[in-house]
């Protein structure tokens, strides 16, 4: 595995391998000293053109727990200069000697461009509306943790799918592992074409909720209202929000997920987020372990001669 750019690069076997490996890193994270020397001497750089302290810290924590060194280039600390081309920035970073670049950018496709210019491993931490593969992996892990294998499970993804990289990666990951996915959104918030998407579609959240094992809620951003995609956020909440009433429609074993940060009161009622079947905190916790697994697979050194493992 040279890069992690899209969930599609992994296949079912690739995803399962990462999830299995994540178990070990969950165990490491629970130790009094949650650290292993596996990536000692390696350097992982965060290149964040879009501000996201949570995701960036999750990756940096993962790198540090593997004993890697970290560097941060972030628009929030102004270390990413406006006007400097991405190619020049990447070449500057590589000249300092790095092993992996974790990149987030508001434009789809930037991680692919960087992978073409760089000899390091590239991890896509979110590119525009396109993908967020580690989010999908930690979502799969969280579901497996609570409900077992995704095969045959039913997942509803509710909200602004059109603009959501989390949704695109989740659809790929969940369906690859055999789950059935239903998208629930008003037509203005669905992609223009769902050709080739292995999903069902519904506008009626009340009909869908009783049938699903997972209700996955996407963040509803204020901007969508000004773009004439929605009459108002109030109407969105009334028709698609996971209110307290709607939470009762869910089956007793069903879980509620959200990639964060939540707009309490919009896509999810404040009190629903704190119900026992809401696993949002688990998602965050699992995020570090999943990212450790990804970094380990990309950068971990290993035995050239498999089979001669005794020592």
């Amino acid at each position, binding site marked *: 595995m040279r890069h992690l750019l899209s969930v599609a690069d992994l296949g079912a076997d690739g995803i399962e391998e990462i999830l299995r490996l994540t178990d070990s890193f969950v165990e490491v994270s629970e130790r009094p000293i949650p650290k292993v020397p596996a990536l000692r001497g390696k350097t992982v750089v965060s290149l964040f053109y879009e501000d996201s302290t949570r995701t960036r810290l999750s990756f940096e924590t993962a790198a540090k727990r593997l004993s890697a060194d970290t560097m941060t280039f972030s628009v929030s600390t102004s270390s990413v200069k406006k006007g400097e081309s*991405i*190619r020049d920035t990447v070449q500057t970073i590589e000249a300092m000697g790095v092993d992996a670049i974790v990149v987030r950018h508001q434009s*789809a496709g930037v991680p*692919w461009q960087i992978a073409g210019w760089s000899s390091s491993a590239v991890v896509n931490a979110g590119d*525009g509306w*396109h993908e967020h593969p580690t989010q999908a992996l930690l979502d799969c892990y969280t579901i497996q943790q609570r409900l077992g294998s995704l095969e045959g499970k039913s997942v509803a993804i509710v909200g602004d799918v059109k603009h959501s990289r989390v949704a695109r990666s989740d659809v790929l990951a969940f369906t690859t592992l055999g789950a059935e996915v239903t998208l629930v959104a008003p037509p203005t918030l669905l992609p*223009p*074409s769902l050709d*080739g*998407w292995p999903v069902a579609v519904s506008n009626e959240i009340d009909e869908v909720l009783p049938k699903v094992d997972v209700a996955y809620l996407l963040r509803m951003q204020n901007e969508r209202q000004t773009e004439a995609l929605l009459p108002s956020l109030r109407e969105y909440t009334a028709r698609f929000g996971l209110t307290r009433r709607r939470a009762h429609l869910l089956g007793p074993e069903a879980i509620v997920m959200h990639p964060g940060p939540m707009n309490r009161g919009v896509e999810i009622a404040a009190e629903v987020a704190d119900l026992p079947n809401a696993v949002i905190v688990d998602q965050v916790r699992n995020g570090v372990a999943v990212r450790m697994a990804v970094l380990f697979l990309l950068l971990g050194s290993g035995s050239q001669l498999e089979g001669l493992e005794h020592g």
Partner: protein
Amino acid sequence: MADAATALVIKGGRLIDPTGERAADVAVGRDGRVRAVADAIDASGPDVLDAGGCIVAPGLVDLHTHLREPGREEAETVETGSRAAALGGFTAVIAMPNTDPALDSAAAVREVLDLGKAALCDVHVAGAITVGRKGEQLAPMGEMADLGVRIFTDDGSGVQDDRLMRRALEYASGLDVTLAQHCEVESLSEGGHMHEGAWSSRLGVPGIPPEAEELMVMRDLALARLAGGCMHFQHLSTAGSVALVRQAKAKSMLVTAEACPHHFTLTDAEVASYDPLFKVNPPLRTADDILAIKAGLSDGTIDAIATDHAPHTQEVKEAPFDEAPCGMLGLETALALALTELGLPIERVLALMSWQPALIAGIDDHHGGAIVEGAPANLVVIDPEATWVVDPFRLASRSRNTPYAGRSLTGRVRHTLLWGEPVVVDGEAQR
């Protein structure tokens, strides 16, 4: 039959021009005109251009080229663009007005025409329809027409305001010039960077629906009927647009249309690489649209192949996909793509690339005409069997943004004559 006034002889080729096809040698005079067309012209004195196995045709005419000068000389200049044109077999190009400043006045037009005097092809100018191409006020088309401008367009953008477009058509009909439109309704295309469809949905890139082009085609057809005036549709890219033009022609409307090679060879699937080399406006569309364009080129709905040659520096074309500018090189690959990909007889391709665009551009007195004694010697010698591989680093353009790098093509220009001067010999520019 060669005499002292003959500068060179094109020997051993097969002539194809609007009147038909015949094997013959062509003697070109020092005056820049054809001196004789006959079998086996004695070439012991003058220079010989070997055309064995080749087609000899009137030079190609490009209705749609961006020469970037003035304002964006780092990407291309009139000189480098004309060299690329000559190597592509073009003896005339129509330069688009979206320069900086825009070509919206006699002074600006004159500057480019002057630069064109030293070029390797005839450089004609398309003037802007509106001042600054802003779509608010009519540009002084009359003073530009006095300098010989025959086509006006705001290319880069379409004229958004319906009333202004009506006035432009009415005014143009009084000047006997043609209005050309880059059809794009900005309220529908805004924010889009590729064709809106299955691929844009999968790739998470905002899209431009075909209706953004088709609505303006519809509008301009209606306005042209209302106001009179000649309408030419630039770079048609959708099946719907082709159907609209076909309908209009069936009703004997005086409209013409062009299509670009990238719109009959590449689909939106190419954007999956996120390489901005595949970003263009109008965007690459679907396989069905390609079929419709090819059908339109075959049945006469589309009158010309134009290149929309749009050079950009490597730096700007390496920006993130949605930040990169739109455009691809085209002058040096258009003929080969048309010969390789369309499956049309070469006479039809030459009609689409030489005499029909010459007519639309109003330069058919000097280009695209029959190869007979006295005709201007603006000629191209094409080897239809030569295969070559596109190498961005061996193109004459100052820029490298071709989406065809590494592609193997069949059909290559061997010689190009501009007013009798051999500007390209054996595939090499002579200056």
